[in-house]
């Protein structure tokens, strides 16, 4: 019947419209996934797989082993870890102090937005310009160095300080580590409800007891997590170090840079292993950060 035929032709059309809609969606997201595959996933996998191969392409763990046995590589990782730990710990501590001062410290209202804006800018001011800035300030002919010599008769370089060194690099890294800590920990400090402070007080606790038993336990996942984030951030940095300490401080990123440029290790697969080591370290730190963030969010409902 005409009616039946009409009904019958309706159903498939409705279906094809449905399929059409979902299909469009899949088509719509395809560029993203193609991009991700080509420029993120496959290159990384290529390196990871290559780390476990030898020159002929056979599976081997020798490259990984060499990361630990070869002195230059071992020391490179060690220095990187030391710089990252130092800048992460100091950055976390000082960043926390600044955030605390701005949020809880009882200062005028305008301090906090100023600090946040400045932190936003400073956390992006990294790389080569940052190195130049610190050279101009604390280098041998830098302004602060000269001011201290001229007006205070104090030559910081005579104390053994050198900007082009482990501590100099750490000090420079703090310029973006501290703001990063401030930006991330300030919302966490906001989450400390005033009533918790008051409840603890009315139950007899002093200010320190409040911090020890209530505030710090609530905050520690965020603090620890952000410290790990700072660690990973520092570990993967290269531009600043390149301009500041160059090849005098042999950190992993500089070593990898030299390897990519000129195959200083004389072994491509060892280079891949180097990269794999980096991925693991930053991956684990960032993963821990994300996990800790999720945990602390759960408490602050």
């Amino acid at each position, binding site marked *: 019947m005409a009616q039946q035929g009409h009904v019958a032709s309706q159903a498939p059309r409705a279906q094809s419209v449905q399929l059409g809609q979902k299909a469009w969606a899949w088509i719509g997201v395809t560029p993203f996934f193609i991009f991700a595959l080509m420029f993120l996933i496959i290159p990384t996998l290529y390196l990871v797989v290559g780390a476990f191969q030898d020159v002929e392409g056979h599976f081997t763990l020798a490259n990984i082993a060499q990361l630990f046995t070869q002195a230059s590589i071992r020391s490179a990782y060690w220095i990187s870890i030391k710089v990252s730990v130092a800048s992460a710990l100091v950055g976390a501590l000082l960043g926390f102090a600044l955030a605390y001062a701005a949020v809880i410290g009882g200062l005028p209202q305008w301090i906090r937005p100023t600090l946040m804006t400045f932190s936003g800018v400073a956390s992006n001011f990294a790389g080569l310009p940052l190195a130049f800035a610190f050279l101009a300030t604390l280098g041998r002919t830098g302004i602060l160095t000269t001011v201290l010599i001229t007006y205070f008769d104090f030559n910081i370089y005579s104390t053994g300080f050198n900007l082009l060194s482990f501590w100099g690099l750490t000090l420079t890294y703090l310029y973006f580590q501290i703001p990063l800590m401030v930006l991330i920990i300030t919302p966490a400090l906001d989450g400390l409800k005033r009533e918790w402070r*008051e*409840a603890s*007080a009315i139950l007899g*606790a002093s200010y320190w007891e409040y911090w020890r038993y*209530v505030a710090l336990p609530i905050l520690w996942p965020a603090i620890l997590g952000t410290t790990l984030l700072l660690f990973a951030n520092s570990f993967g940095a290269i531009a600043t170090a390149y301009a500041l300490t160059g090849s005098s401080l042999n950190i992993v990123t500089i070593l990898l840079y030299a390897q990519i440029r000129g195959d200083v290790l004389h072994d491509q697969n060892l280079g891949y292993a180097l990269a794999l080591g980096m991925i693991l370290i930053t991956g684990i730190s960032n993963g821990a950060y994300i996990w800790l963030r999720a945990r602390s969010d759960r*408490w602050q409902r």
Partner: protein
Amino acid sequence: MAFLDITDVRKNYGPQTVVHKFDLDVERGEFISFLGPSGCGKTTTLRMVAGFEVPTAGAIRIDGKDITRLRPNQRNVGMVFQSYALFPNMTVADNVAFGLKIARKPATEIAGRVAEMLKIIKLPHLGERFPYQLSGGQQQRVALARALAISPKVLLLDEPLSALDAKIRVSLREEIRSLQRSLGITTIYVTHDQEEALSMSDRIVVMNEGRVEQIGTPFEIYNNPRTRFVASFVGTLNLLKGKVVDPVAGKIVIDGQEVFSSKRIGHLQAGEACAAALRPEAATLHQTELQEAAKIASSFARESGPRNRMVGTIEEVSFLGSVVRIRVRFQENAISLDTFNNPNATPPARGAQVTVTFGREDLLVLEGAEG
């Protein structure tokens, strides 16, 4: 001397006075409510007793000791907050134990006390749960246990039920009251809900815009409101606009009908406009002649002296279950009155002409013409 003495307390924030002269003597074991709208100063006064705000003037004494300048952690008062304020990183047991731990009590004593408190609030098996796993009502009970665990001298509650559902509010307030009675602890309860204040308190302090309007028992506050604010804030009230006829005799005219008030209005002038107030339950409805009043009298009908009567028309009849609310219109004015549901009598119909009677002492004349 009273157990809790609040004398001449005042609080200013710069030029703004938030609490004017506040005086209150609380007996040991008494349950006092601070009742009023938002911003009336009730919470500020409570926080001054707790120690979170320092009075600009005046003194606060507990059990003879002047605590006005003491820090909150030195006062040994307990406080329950509107938002529960349980420590999210601690279990229920640890929350309750917190005050005792700070006081460095031995562990066995702490454990025993915590178990006792959990039993009192009827949550003995939730000791190891975390606050985010509990419902609102449960959290508030834990907050109560935490405040009481340290055996405080005074218990302060800052709108503790405002954040909860209506049903839980009712059951929890009964629990709080019975707990307070059995422990005999002096309590101050801040609320904007007059039903809560009326049902729970020994005495109520009604506040408005930083001032104490009246202090009295629930019965006193409700039946003998001293100011127009108290009258309108506590309970529902019919407001009528009238004019004074004879201030000495207490006669006023409302919509052309003369009525008498036994409350003193000698300070008003004849011809002056005035507002009168009448509680819904004080009025009685008579559908037919006045002589038949006895048949349909409400439970609380008063027999003392000649009653006022006004004639009007029924505008609206609302059947609310056990109560029937009837609105009677005169001319410009209308009053709502409540009668109990009588399954044997038909409710009156809209448009029917009726007579409303009420006692002379039930008509309160308030200052000012506006409603």
